[in-house]
């Protein structure tokens, strides 16, 4: 009997332990989800200024942290807290923040301000879902520090959704083609100025170095789409062509202009200029191969040097940036800016503080600071980067180039391409780059994808 009682005691103990374990598990989960919010805490009492019309309460800001890092955000938010001591800023930030915050958006309890960038985010989708506040009227009221109207001083105007504005483009990024300037100078390789010289330069490098000169991420074919094809389409057919391709207009993808551009890609593939192993490369792997001189050209945005800062091998010389040379001889380079916008949620709980924050961010001082921190450009005109030593050389040069219409022509897309269209087109594009598809087949697939997209 004693033995039995002892046995029961053990079972009871085990059961209690199990329950405790289960309880610990569940509370652990809560804690884990709590840590992603790096709460700003309160900074009341410290601030000096800011009797700003009684704006207070919690302000939740969601921002993606990728190639640009988060140091600029930290500084801006700290300044904002000083200016508005009554506002408790709660930051939701990180490289996976779009996924982590998705449930909040689905349940109708979104953060107040969102910076739309990175994997898992789609401005177009958010607008289609009615998640962003219509800023058309309010945007007219925003002023820069010297009283200039913001809407008149954007480098690139906000995305246009049937005449309405739902987001304000914060970061001006431009995709282009990168090369190692020091390496090219030393070996005497030509820096391409148009598609013809691009091909001859690649031919020369291929023969001299025994490498396939061009690489991009095969796991994310949109790097090629945005980095090479958008400029190519812009140069070939202007804003109109870009708009019709991005909205998937009937007949746009199967037009002759597009076919001719895609034949250039086919030529690159068939002449062995494109890395045959790119199918399995994610973006950092392709960037690493570029830095290791396994390849000579790579299309990426301005964030490349910042993102790869810790991984640059000694053999790598100096970053050189040109707009992607896909245009015909005699024409200026084409650049299609890629904007990363700031928006306010339709269901923001504290819209006043959200507006105050958005207003606060758009100044020329913060634009200068942004270039220092990230090596990219904030979408505000009239910022003179040339006098600032902290801004990297490639950026001042690229900036000067972009602002010289003789060298570079700017083209604009109406809004980003929907993932529903970009995914199938990217898949066909990869097949084309791997040499498994012809330009004609690609065009056919792309037209079918656009038809499917229009149908949804």
């Amino acid at each position, binding site marked *: 009997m004693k033995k039995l009682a002892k046995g029961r005691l053990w079972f009871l103990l085990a059961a209690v332990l199990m329950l405790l374990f289960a309880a610990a598990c569940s509370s652990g989960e809560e804690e884990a989800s709590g840590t992603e919010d790096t709460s700003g805490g309160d900074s009341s009492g410290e601030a000096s200024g800011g009797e700003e019309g009684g704006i207070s309460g919690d302000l939740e800001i969601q921002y993606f942290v990728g190639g640009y890092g988060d140091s600029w955000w930290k500084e801006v938010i700290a300044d904002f807290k000083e200016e508005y001591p009554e506002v408790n800023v709660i930051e939701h930030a990180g490289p996976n923040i779009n996924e982590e915050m998705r449930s909040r958006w*689905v349940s109708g309890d979104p953060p107040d301000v969102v910076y739309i960038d990175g994997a898992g985010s789609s401005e177009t989708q958010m607008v289609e*879902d009615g998640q962003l506040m219509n800023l058309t009227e309010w945007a007219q009221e925003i002023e820069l520090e010297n009283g200039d109207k913001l809407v008149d001083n954007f480098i690139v105007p906000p995305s246009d959704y049937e005449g309405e504005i739902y987001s304000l483009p914060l970061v001006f990024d431009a995709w282009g083609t990168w090369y190692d300037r020091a390496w090219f100078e030393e070996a005497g390789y030509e820096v391409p100025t148009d598609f013809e010289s691009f091909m001859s330069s690649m031919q020369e490098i291929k023969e001299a170095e025994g490498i396939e000169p061009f690489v991009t991420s*095969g796991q994310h074919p949109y790097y090629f789409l945005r980095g090479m094809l958008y400029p190519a389409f812009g140069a070939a057919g202007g804003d109109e062509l870009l708009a019709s391709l991005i909205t998937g207009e009937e007949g746009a993808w199967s037009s002759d202009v597009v076919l001719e551009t895609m034949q250039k890609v086919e030529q690159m593939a068939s002449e062995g200029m494109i890395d045959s*192993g790119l199918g*399995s490369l994610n973006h950092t792997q392709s960037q690493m191969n570029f830095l290791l001189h396994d390849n000579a050209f790579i299309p990426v945005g301005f964030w490349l040097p910042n993102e790869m800062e810790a991984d640059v091998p000694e053999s790598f010389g100096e970053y050189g940036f040109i707009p992607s040379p896909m245009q015909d001889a005699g024409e200026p380079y084409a650049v299609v800016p890629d904007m990363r916008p700031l928006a306010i949620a339709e269901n923001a709980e504290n819209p006043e503080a959200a507006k105050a924050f958005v207003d606060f961010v758009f100044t020329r001082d913060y634009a200068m600071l942004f270039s220092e921190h990230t090596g990219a450009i904030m979408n505000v005109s009239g910022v003179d980067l040339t006098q600032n030593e902290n801004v990297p050389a490639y950026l001042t040069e690229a900036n000067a180039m972009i602002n010289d219409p003789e060298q570079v022509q700017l083209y604009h897309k109406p809004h980003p391409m929907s993932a529903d269209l970009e995914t199938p087109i990217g898949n066909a594009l990869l097949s084309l780059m791997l040499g498994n598809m012809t330009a004609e087949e690609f065009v056919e697939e792309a037209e079918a994808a656009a038809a499917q997209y229009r149908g949804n």
Partner: protein
Amino acid sequence: MRGVIPHSILFIICLMAASSFSIEKSGEMVQSKKQKYLFLAFCLVPTFIMFSIFTLYPLFSGLYYSFFEMSGSSSNKEFIGFDNYIRLFNDDIILDTIIHDYFLVVTKVIGIMIMAMFFAVALTQLKIKEAPFYRIVFFFPNIMSVVVIGILWMFIYNPDLGLVNSGLAFLGLENLQRPWLGSETWALPSLVLPSIWAGIGLFMLMLMGGIANISKSYYEAAEIDGATQWQQFWRVTVPLVWPQIKISILYIVITTLNGSFIIVQVMTGGGPNNATHVMGSYLYQQAFVQFNFGYGATIGVMILVLSLITVMILQFLLRREKVDY
């Protein structure tokens, strides 16, 4: 995963309570009917509630959402009837994903069962001194996360630095070098190897358990009758471990249909050009990359239906009379 833990814990608690109860019963206490039902309710009701919340509710809500058009990133949704199902039947990629899934199922079942059987027989019957060591070595991949395995094998397959291509170069077989995961032809077959490698250990242990239970006298009798090792294997070992073989095959099939998503997502993301998409990874892409959550739910329903049909067919094919010598 969230649902599984409290679920299994409750089950274990009930089992323990039940065993202590029976000990008590055999001792002195006589149990009344009411007590018995109370006890059963105590065991079953919480489990059933958990099961409903974590299994039935998601199952039916998945079915429910498959009739809606929704992006999955907002609460807006629009009832569209069977449109998602019509789209499913007209989607060319769906057929590819099904073929890819069953390609993995077939190659994994064959690969894992042959290797696991071979190792199990070798380690139990060949009287190898280092058997315990090998048992640990072969089981090792099973305690690794599939994500880690995927990343590890990505390095192995790396076109420039990877073990496979450098090995081929070392052997002078440069013409066989390929960008394995980057090739539309070779990417899917390349996923089979890590999947098999990761799966052998568990099934080897299961089969070893089965073989260890076979009485030595059968083999002695067979030997006296002049049966070769090969005949002993087919006539004695296989029939007597058939229940384990059957369970193993079913388990591989189910986990592949539901779980090959992970290795695909980690190693290729479904690419290049959809060459490795399985149903699960395509579901993920539709629901969370292309923002077609409703359509993703429809693909989920398809996976459920196909898994059920496959398991039923397998149950039928693998049925055998229980052998008892």
